[in-house]
């Protein structure tokens, strides 16, 4: 067997240019496939993480009625018990209480429907990174009376800047329409222009006072130490506060979870297509190699090399080509992905389209380690399957004819 392996290995290097071309095509195939995979996963990961870090958080708690009708009266029942349950759960890293009120915002330029999110800024900083996304102004540090932080898109639509006044009109707990002036203290810009257009942040104490909420809240955003603890924590919290609806980020935004699953499957299909194309390249090269070596293969059969050894020799040759190419392709892909994972790929030209999908203009490719192993196995398997046709062709040679062929 060692001799067969030795011959197969040396055969790989008989025609260096051809072997190099095959190896290069496998390397480039792997590189292209893995890079596209990392880009796709990176896009999705960014979209998911962006949504979680900006507005979804890991877990959200609401009054079940609020989910069907976000009415001001659908506040969280048993607020103190709920907060106590959160404080006692060690998987809760941070949480922020929010008072949400559907409202109309108006300026001299127009009026638009928005959601007022009443927050405690210091609490909110622990569950949302919007405070890091300020395009201008400050995040609740300067103005004492009715400050508001609004999205860039909304500011553009309203034609307002920092320090401009806006009027918020909403129904209070007594079903009276209240109008109040707020001053724009800061303008934020997330990766989702839709979010920026719809959400105005104010201090919870301000909206509480104006809407007569009496300390009631509509939403609690919870962050766990890691995303892996979300499902378990959700279940535990739901048990502890049965009157509220406890939902994980994937329940709140199922499309993000579906997208992640769909993309994981899609990238395998994509890689499968690349490998399928590669398989034809390998088959073609090996068939060429066999046609060129008909006389030699005829001799080997004539002098007594049995079919199993001949078959193995061809299979080994093909597998060697791929086993040289796979580590090179993997290393190249790894270095490439790591480089851009830190540096990012600037897609500013498509920024508007990406932002409407909730993705920033800089894409950071991301590929979990297990994909490298899976693709290695897939490539070697494809090489093995590709070797079967040339090996079968070799076995079908008539030694008497092959040995005399030119």
């Amino acid at each position, binding site marked *: 067997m060692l001799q067969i392996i030795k011959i197969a290995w040396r055969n790989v290097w008989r025609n260096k240019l051809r072997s190099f071309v095959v190896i290069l095509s496998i390397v480039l195939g792997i590189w292209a496939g893995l890079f596209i995979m990392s880009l796709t996963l990176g896009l999705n990961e960014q979209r998911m993480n962006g949504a979680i870090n900006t507005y979804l958080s890991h877990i959200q708690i609401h009054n079940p009625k609020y989910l069907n009708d976000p009415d001001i009266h659908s506040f969280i029942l048993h607020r103190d018990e709920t907060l106590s349950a959160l404080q006692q759960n060690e998987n809760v890293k941070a949480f922020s209480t929010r008072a949400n009120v559907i409202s109309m915002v108006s300026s001299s330029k127009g009026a638009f429907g928005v959601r007022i999110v009443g927050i405690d800024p210091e609490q909110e900083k622990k569950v949302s990174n919007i405070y890091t996304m300020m395009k201008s102004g400050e995040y609740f540090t300067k103005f004492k009376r009715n400050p508001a932080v609004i999205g860039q898109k909304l500011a553009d639509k309203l034609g307002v800047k920092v320090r401009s006044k806006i009027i918020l009109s909403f129904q209070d707990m007594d079903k009276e329409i209240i109008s109040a002036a707020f001053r724009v203290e800061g303008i934020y810009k997330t990766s989702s222009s839709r979010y920026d257009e719809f959400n105005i942040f104010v201090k919870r104490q301000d909206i509480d006072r104006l809407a007569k909420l009496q300390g009631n809240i509509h939403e609690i955003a919870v962050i766990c130490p890691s995303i892996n603890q979300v499902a378990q924590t959700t279940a535990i919290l739901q048990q502890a506060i049965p009157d509220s609806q406890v939902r994980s980020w994937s329940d709140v935004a199922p499309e993000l979870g579906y997208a992640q699953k769909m993309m994981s499957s899609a990238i395998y299909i994509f890689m499968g297509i690349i490998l399928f194309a590669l398989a034809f390249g390998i088959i073609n090269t090996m068939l060429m190699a066999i046609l060129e070596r008909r006389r030699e293969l005829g*001799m080997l059969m*004539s*002098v007594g090399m049995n079919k199993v050894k001949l078959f193995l020799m061809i299979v080994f040759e093909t597998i060697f080509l791929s086993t040289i190419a796979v580590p090179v392709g993997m290393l190249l892909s790894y270095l490439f992905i790591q480089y851009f994972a830190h540096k990012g790929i600037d897609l500013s030209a498509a920024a508007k389209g990406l932002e409407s999908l909730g993705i920033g203009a800089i894409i950071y490719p991301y590929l979990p380690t297990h994909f490298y192993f899976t693709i290695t196995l897939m490539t070697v398997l494809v090489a093995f399957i590709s070797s079967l046709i040339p090996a079968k062709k070799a076995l079908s040679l008539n030694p008497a004819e092959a040995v005399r062929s030119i």
Partner: protein
Amino acid sequence: MSIITTKDLFKIYNADSEIEVRALNGVNLDIQEGEFTAIVGPSGSGKTTLLNIIGGLDQPTSGSVIINDTEVTKLSSNQLIDFRLHNIGFVFQAYNLIPVLTALENVEFIMMMQGQAKDLRQKRAIELLKAVGLEKEINKRPNKMSGGQQQRVAVARALASKPRFVLADEPTANLDSKSTAQLLDIMAALNQKEGTTFIFSTHDQRVIDRAKRVITLDDGKIISDV
């Protein structure tokens, strides 16, 4: 003692068609152990076909080939491969060495397939390469050797498995006269010294002159045997 016997050997290509070719037309032949035989005849007379059938590389349309009490024409393809490995040495017109192996490795290769231990096969390979005058070339690959040297390696390889006989199909066709003479000297010496049976198919008068027995074929029939 008879080592090879062919009985009523027929080989018809494209049978039952308008372009039927009768390559062998009832060949009856006995080859004794230790013979140095040349099978001669014009192109298309059936020399190579006869050698292929004796060597188990091709099947006759009818008739039988018996080698040392084994009717090889009845063996399955896998049995034939094994039979060839242990009983027949081949020398081809175009040398047909394995280009990625050295001379030593080429000679060892057959013994390796026979499952012989490394030290034994290396020792025999070196002995054989010495016998064909290539002791200085053992680590050279075929592309670094002349045609004559390559054919001598092929002879050493053919003998490595200690075959019952060696079939050589036009072994001197690609060689110059000096290399031909050297090769024939070596094969004749091995024939005399080790009693190895050699059967050649050839056009080459130099080979015919050195053969102890010359069988002439024409139109697939033996027309003389001297």
